[in-house]
């Protein structure tokens, strides 16, 4: 059993359904979708014209001059980190910089900065390429910029495992605290990949849904439909989320408000295919079992899962198999939801946003719904709420799953606070 207990003491997000945690959480509980038509001028050239933009652009929140030195993904991370830091009450707490770490991930890195500078290179020549391009586009830029702002001098990580990155950052933060390398870690994920190149690439590999992007008359809000028979790919979202993870001892000593306990994490790989999930979900099953074992969790106490379920035909089914394999008969009493039905898929930002939803579900003892579940796939035998559903009293556990290209599987188990 790991000796150091880890707790969540602060939350921050900017998401397709809200510019902060209270707004985002209420939108998720209400079943509000953040998906709509994109208004970018390039969108008419693409087979996919819908997405989930953040509701509050970072330019409305951040100082203009500081923001122009940050890729959009770093801007999201900074907005979320500022909120989480304030929420945790860490300002003036006397936390030593050497005991503060950061683990903030992205799936693709500063892709819009990279491509904008490539456009400049081609159109105006090498002299016009920004001297800031590399520090802006590097994958560790969000983590590094947050560490600069808050003076974090313990480890500053940016794990990359595609769509599992945000959840892997949280898993890494648990390790940093349990190994004694930090007392507090700002952990999360961010992604800003709504750009024609990644969107064309995802569309061409049949990962993005093309529904509601042509003449089919469908509503963009209806396209992300995890576990529904009509699902045909994910919808791309953007945003960033940060959680403050802290050793329980440190949190109690400073009288911090504790949202939930982080019980354990599991990380595994399918080694099956670069993009397709293992159809039997064996790698994901191992990751979830690892998370429960690390937290010494009785599967009977797992009452809620924020699933990865992205609205792709194969992945959603595989995740159902994993939950049956791990929870057995207890799966019947477990409320499983996919908030991606409302936010779309934030890639490297997904795991952290969904971790916040998982933590809030435990804290408020209520699961957000999965919207657009009109005709549940008969191959999926899970209890999926189509409107908000209360969770039971007592000691309860919730899981957050994330899976990524490259075969990555990450599961994190959270526990309610007494």
């Amino acid at each position: 059993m790991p000796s150091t207990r880890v707790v969540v003491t602060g939350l921050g997000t900017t998401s397709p359904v809200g510019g902060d945690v209270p707004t985002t959480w209420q939108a998720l509980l209400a079943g509000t979708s953040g998906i709509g038509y994109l208004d970018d001028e390039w969108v008419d050239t693409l087979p996919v014209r819908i997405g989930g933009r953040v509701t509050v652009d970072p330019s409305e929140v951040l100082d203009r001059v500081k923001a122009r030195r940050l890729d959009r993904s770093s801007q999201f991370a900074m907005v979320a980190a500022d909120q989480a830091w304030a929420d945790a009450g860490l300002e003036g707490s006397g936390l030593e910089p050497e005991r503060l770490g950061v683990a903030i991930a992205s799936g693709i890195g500063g892709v819009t900065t990279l491509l904008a500078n490539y456009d400049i290179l081609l159109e105006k020549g090498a002299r016009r390429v920004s001297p800031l391009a590399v520090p802006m586009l590097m994958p560790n830029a969000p983590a590094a910029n947050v560490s600069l702002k808050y003076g974090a001098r313990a480890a500053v990580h940016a794990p990359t495992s595609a769509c599992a990155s945000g959840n892997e950052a949280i898993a890494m933060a648990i390790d940093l605290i349990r190994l004694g390398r930090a007392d507090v870690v700002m952990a999360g994920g961010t992604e800003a990949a709504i750009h024609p190149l990644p969107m064309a690439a995802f569309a061409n590999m049949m990962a993005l849904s093309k529904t509601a992007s042509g003449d089919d008359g469908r509503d963009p809000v209806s396209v992300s439909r995890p576990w529904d028979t009509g699902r045909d790919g994910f919808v791309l979202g953007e945003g960033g989320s940060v959680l403050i993870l802290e050793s329980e001892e440190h949190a109690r000593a400073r009288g911090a408000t504790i949202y939930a306990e982080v019980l354990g994490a599991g990380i595994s790989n399918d080694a099956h295919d670069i993009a397709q999930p293992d159809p039997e979900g064996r790698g994901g099953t191992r990751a979830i079992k690892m998370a429960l074992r690390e937290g010494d969790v009785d599967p009977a106490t797992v009452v809620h899962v924020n699933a990865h379920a992205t609205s792709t035909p194969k992945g959603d089914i595989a995740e159902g198999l994993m939950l049956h394999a791990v929870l057995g008969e207890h799966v019947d009493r477990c409320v499983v939801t996919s908030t991606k039905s409302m936010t779309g898929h934030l890639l490297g930002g997904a795991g952290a946003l969904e971790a916040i939803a998982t933590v809030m579900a435990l804290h408020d003892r209520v699961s957000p719904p999965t919207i657009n579940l009109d005709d549940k796939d008969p191959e999926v035998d899970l209890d999926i709420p189509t409107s908000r559903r209360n969770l039971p009293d007592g000691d309860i556990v919730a899981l957050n799953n994330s899976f990524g290209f490259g075969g990555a599987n990450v599961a994190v188990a959270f526990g309610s606070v007494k």
Partner: protein
Amino acid sequence: MATTEEIRADLADIVNEVAGVDADDVQLDKSFVDDLDVDSLSMVEVVVAAEEKFGVTIPDDEVKNLKTVGDAVAFIERSQG
């Protein structure tokens, strides 16, 4: 031909855009580093933007000589002349 004041005003707008310095503070006697707090990477951005705006070339080894706003304006005037 642009006047010294016109060049200073356009340069001030660039410094404001890049580094957030109030354009009214960008006067000929001000040092980019010591008075206006323009760091080395921002200076490169200012130089590149100035080259585009004024249609001049400012070689890398010339940049270190541009200590004040006046130095930069004078260099641009000479280059344009």
